[in-house]
């Protein structure tokens, strides 16, 4: 395991800027999640660290050594690809053993067998070990592909949306499993996702990417409580943060264009009058869709609320976020 430093990396593909001066400091033993929509450059960062692509500018160093010009094999990384990329003519067992059979390692056959069995157990694919890789469901292929990374002890695990094709229950199981693997072995993870729950539950640090730029790098808690911009604030929170014109409520500071209100930043029963347009009972909570001066917003209330569509509800902001015209936070 090792500290990984991404230093001011830029990369263009056919004139399109995929990464623009991204710097990341991934401490040893941390679980860093890169968050952002499709095309933000998350996968490109992974490929730079892995060595599959070379940056136009900037450098990656692992464990204090510059990785310039080194191949993925020389960097000692393990990567999980979004499109599985299993070896189709091999069995699950052979796929899992593949990285252990590198001539650089010289692992004993008995050890290989034990490690493969262990990792298969963790990922709940022991019963499929002798199947061909092509005779698996999408979720099983994805688990094998995660397993192929986990059998090794690389400097860093790189994972590209590894849970995206799994069903909800398995995803929840593996989320916990991956997190415990990481904290038990003190492994370093760089993990790409667009799922905010994965980011919130597993990450020690979250990096938010927007069009090739790193806009914020913080712990999930800090990112949630202290976003630097509208964009960063919109990454986390369920239901999403409400972004409204700042002048809807009194008390906006100088230069504020928008006010950002998470559900817990809205106090109900006092302040400005709004209308309830829809009530969604989700069991553990109830979502209220409100209309305030022809702006829509969503907040939550207790599960046993008597409110119904058409009712009036007064609301007032409580320690809200204010954003300037360019979208950046105003303190």
């Amino acid at each position, binding site marked *: 395991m090792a500290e990984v430093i991404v230093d001011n990396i830029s990369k263009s593909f056919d004139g399109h800027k995929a990464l623009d001066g991204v710097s990341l400091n991934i401490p040893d033993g941390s679980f860093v999640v890169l968050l952002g929509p499709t095309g933000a450059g998350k996968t490109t960062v992974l490929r730079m660290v892995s060595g599959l692509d070379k940056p136009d500018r900037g450098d990656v160093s692992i464990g204090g050594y510059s990785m310039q010009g080194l191949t993925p*094999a020389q960097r000692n990384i*393990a*990567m999980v690809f979004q*499109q599985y*990329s299993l*070896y189709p*003519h091999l069995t699950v067992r052979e796929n899992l053993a*593949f990285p252990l059979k590198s001539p650089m390692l010289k692992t004993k056959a008995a050890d290989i067998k034990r490690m493969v069995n262990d990792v298969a157990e963790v990922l709940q694919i022991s019963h499929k070990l002798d199947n061909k890789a092509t005779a698996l469901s999408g979720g099983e292929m994805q688990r094998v592909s995660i397993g*192929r990374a986990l059998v090794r002890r690389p400097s860093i695990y*790189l994972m590209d949306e590894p849970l995206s094709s799994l069903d909800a229950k398995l995803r929840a199981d593996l989320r916990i499993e991956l997190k415990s693997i990481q904290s038990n072995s003190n492994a370093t993870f760089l993990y790409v996702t667009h799922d905010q729950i994965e980011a919130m539950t597993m990450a020690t640090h979250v990096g938010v990417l927007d069009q090739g730029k790193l806009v914020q790098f913080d712990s999930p808690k800090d990112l949630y409580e202290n976003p630097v911009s509208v964009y960063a604030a919109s990454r986390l929170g369920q239901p999403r943060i409400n972004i409204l014109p700042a002048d809807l409520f009194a008390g906006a500071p100088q230069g504020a264009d928008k006010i950002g209100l998470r559900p817990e930043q809205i106090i109900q029963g006092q302040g400005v009058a709004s209308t309830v347009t829809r009530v969604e009972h989700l069991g553990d909570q109830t979502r209220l869709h409100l209309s305030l001066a022809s702006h829509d917003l969503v907040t939550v209330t207790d599960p046993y609320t008597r409110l119904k569509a058409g009712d009036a509800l007064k609301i007032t902001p409580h320690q809200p976020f204010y954003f300037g015209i360019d979208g950046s936070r105003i303190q």
Partner: protein
Amino acid sequence: MSNSTIDRAAQATPPAMAQRVKGFSDRTIAWIFVAPTILILLAINIFPLIWTIYLSFTNFRVNRPNNEVEWVGLKNYQRILGDSDVWMTMQATAHFLIWTIVLQVLIGFVLAYLINKKFRGNDLWTTIIVFPMMLSPAVVGNFWTFLYQPQIGLFNYVVSFFTGVDPASFSMIGEVDLAPWAIVIVDTWMWTPFVMLICLAGLRSIPDSIYEAAECDRATKWRQFWTITIPMILPFLMLAVLFRGIENFKMFDLVVQLTGGGPGNTTTLTSIDLKREAFEKWRTGYSSAYAVILFVTVFGLASIYVKALNRVKQR
């Protein structure tokens, strides 16, 4: 009677097909559609095959239709299998088959592997390499006789350029030792591009991400080649061998044009020999037996091979 839209639409729809052609079951209709094809197949494929098998047990000669046809039993088969000349042509065919397949698969795969590397102008190169395949075998046979010409032939000149041998001192199609190789070289020149195209299709079907995964798993290029490229391209290679094998078992035009089966009988492949027996010597019964033997050989080899191919594909 209501005049709703649905009712009017229902009235406008013609009665069902099955109702109109009363008396025909679905099965009958299916047979009516398939019948023409079956009849044509029977007329031009199955009947001649059975007729050939019948003729192979007789001494029938098609140029003497008035002679009485005599049942000779297995005599034709005994004569063919006991004839050392026939075994010579079998040997010539085996030599031609094995070497064309080996060379074409090897060279075709290497070319495909190189062309598949991303470099500028590889599309143009593909087109250039594929060119020989587009020519007529008769044309190819004809102009290679010029290339092989000892005094003015480009082939002899190139060989002498690299080895220093006098170009006029050897004749590729005139010498007993060289002629079998002359036809192998021409067929390889002409059909290697075909094998290359099949291999190229195979190579392009392997996703880049598998190589990237192997790269991250620290497999060397050598190991990637043997554990990813070769197994994944094997079904394609085997298909190429099947195509080329069947084609070359039937080889006629190119070799007739090039060597005419000579010198002596050294390049008389079975198909050439068969044509001579049937349509020059007019021994119809004898050549029918010959054809049956060839048919059984090819059919047997091909079915064994296809089984193997399917097993590889399922892996």
